[in-house]
């Protein structure tokens, strides 16, 4: 029986700056069940990391303006007192960061850093906490955990450091685990080990996982649901197999077409998305993707003026795009055949 652990409704996170208001997250909604995995995909500046930091309550002390609702197990986190969020952070929700070398303190041993959260959230003495740290290191597959617990982060390899970070995040048995680009800094064979580890631990602890990445391959490996973000908004949201088998948003098509694939025949030419991601201060009017979209011309100017709402294209599969079902089908068929006609912007003049 699915039971919802996390419900995010119309989340908006904005940062006032001297240059204007940065709308880093602009109306994002999703739900996550216990034991399920949500993959959030997007390019740099799409708001995926800001969303995760917002859930963890890590925008405190910045000038971020957060509105909307984040409910963790029925408890509202937006506007909750920081002392309460602090209690939850580490015990009920935890995070794995991208770069374990900069996320760990170089002056403290790995064991001390893992034991710290356990000491804070549980009434135990140091000895028990240390024993727990050794257990956790063993659990995440570090050989000879009893000996390595007193090592410093620099004595660990990249993959081991990421394992130690996972041990740290899981030390209080959190119900929600957020992994922000957990494997981006790692080699492929180590990446495969870490993805396996996250998978196995999730089966064991039955925790809900949010995995944030720009790598569509990584999300496909782990996710039940997928949320594609663009310029702080949701472009597409649905079950992983629906989004990969029948992607509905031209941006998702672009992402899929622009990455070379090892499992399929080699294409003579990649089909990049023209242009660059927009500035979050001056988000394009209407659909934020329209300046880069090949099909924006088909919508009689609505792309330029009207923000597309998320619409259901099939049960449980939402797409924010003005194209009609017929237009989308034709456009997608063209895309797949590689017959994309004249691109809206000359590909050579990719940027600017």
């Amino acid at each position, binding site marked *: 029986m699915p039971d919802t652990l996390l419900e995010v409704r119309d989340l908006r996170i904005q940062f006032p700056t001297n240059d204007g208001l940065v709308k880093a997250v602009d109306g994002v909604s999703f739900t996550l069940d216990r034991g399920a*995995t949500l993959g959030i995909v997007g*390019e*740099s500046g799409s708001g995926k990391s800001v969303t995760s930091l917002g859930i963890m309550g890590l925008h405190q002390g910045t000038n971020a303006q957060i509105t909307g609702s984040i409910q963790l197990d029925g408890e509202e986190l937006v506007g909750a007192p920081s002392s309460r969020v602090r209690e939850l952070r580490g015990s009920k929700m935890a995070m794995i960061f991208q770069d374990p070398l900069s996320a760990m303190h170089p002056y403290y041993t790995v064991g001390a850093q893992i034991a710290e959260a356990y000491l804070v959230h549980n009434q135990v003495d140091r000895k028990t906490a240390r024993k727990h740290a050794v257990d956790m290191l063993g659990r995440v597959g570090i*050989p000879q955990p009893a000996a390595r617990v007193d090592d410093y982060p620099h004595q660990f*390899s*990249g*993959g*081991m450091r990421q394992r130690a970070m996972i041990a740290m995040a899981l030390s209080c048995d959190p119900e929600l685990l957020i992994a922000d680009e957990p494997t981006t800094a790692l*080699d*492929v*064979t*180590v*990446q*495969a*080990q870490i*993805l*396996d580890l996250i*998978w196995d631990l999730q089966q064991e602890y039955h925790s809900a996982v949010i995995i944030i990445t*720009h*790598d*569509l*391959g*990584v*999300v*496909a*490996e*782990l*996710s*039940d649901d997928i949320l594609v973000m663009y310029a702080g908004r949701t472009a597409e949201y649905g079950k*992983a*197999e629906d989004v*990969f088998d029948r992607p509905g948003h031209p941006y998702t098509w*672009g*992402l*899929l*077409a*622009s*990455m*070379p*694939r*090892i*499992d399929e025949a*080699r*294409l003579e*030419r*990649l*089909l*990049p*998305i*023209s242009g*660059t*991601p927009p500035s979050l201060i001056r988000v394009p009017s209407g659909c934020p993707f329209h300046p880069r979209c090949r099909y924006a011309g088909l919508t009689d100017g609505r792309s330029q003026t009207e923000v597309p709402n998320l619409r259901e294209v099939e049960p449980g599969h939402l797409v924010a795009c003005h194209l009609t079902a017929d237009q989308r089908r034709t456009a997608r068929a063209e895309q797949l055949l590689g017959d994309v006609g004249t691109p809206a912007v000359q*590909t*050579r*003049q*990719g*940027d*600017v």
Partner: protein
Amino acid sequence: MSTPVSTAGTSGTSSGAGDGLLEVSGLMKYFPVTRGVIFRQKIGAVQAVDKVDFSVPAGRTLGLVGESGCGKTTTGRLLTRLLEPTGGRIMFEGRDITHLSMGKMRPLRRDIQMIFQDPYSSLNPRHTVGGIVGAPLRLQKVKTEKGIKATVQELLELVGLNPEHYNRYPHEFSGGQRQRIGIARTLALRPKLIVADEPVSALDVSIQAQVINLLEDLQSELGLTYVVIAHDLSVVRHISDQVAVMYLGKIVELAGRDQLYAKPRHPYTVALMSAVPVPEPVRVEGRRGRRERIRLAGDVPSPLNPPAACRFHTRCWKAQEVCRTQEPPLAELVSGHKVACHFPENTDAVP
């Protein structure tokens, strides 16, 4: 080992050993590890690159792929002579450039250029785009027909940037645009050989494809020869004609792109390929499932003290006694496909 000297300007159709634009044989780089401050003692050496052989025909692309610490970047820096080789030989257009002095190397720098990984740290933030792209022309004192400014503007146009941005600074550009500025600088002297070290790994997915396409266009327009160093197997497959897989300072497999990806023979290559995540969810009875893959245990051993004989034997699932005692040579199994392994995969017939 004989290395035939070929005439300069080899045609692009040539292949095989002995007639490449770039010929590398037995290339080695050991970094000494020392102890003590006043009385420095050499206590060992990091064998970053250990007896590597390959050749790149003119107009073609060689991909060097491997995980961090395999020596691919060091190899690139040896080719461009940013590092001094410990041993071996590098022949460029039939000329031995292995130990050329700085002064003798300088004119050759026109022909051999490099593209760097990080477009943020490889451009000086205090120089304008015009200054950055024009610098090689000034340094080499190249006289240009229309002056440096016009030439730079042509280069900017060639890489898909607006020539009017001549006076802007790097911070005004996005990551993809900065990488284009770096490429324009690389092209300024019309090099023959370009060593590109992770040219797209710092870029967003949609921008990666733009830069890959740009590199391919430039190759066909200008007849460039590339050595592309990357860790991303799918990118290497897309861009290369020949691919060399490196592990702990050695080439373990070297083959044509299609051959290598269709039938990888070295167990390491097989494991590497199976580790690449594929953007296609696996479903088992309606629930998400896991892809079957070869899992390598542990980490890459230290290059300070690499395993004896076959360097991969500590992590290989096929390793036997012979792998621990005898080093497998990089041998041509099938025509154009070299593998250094006692028990290669994907062999059609049992020998």
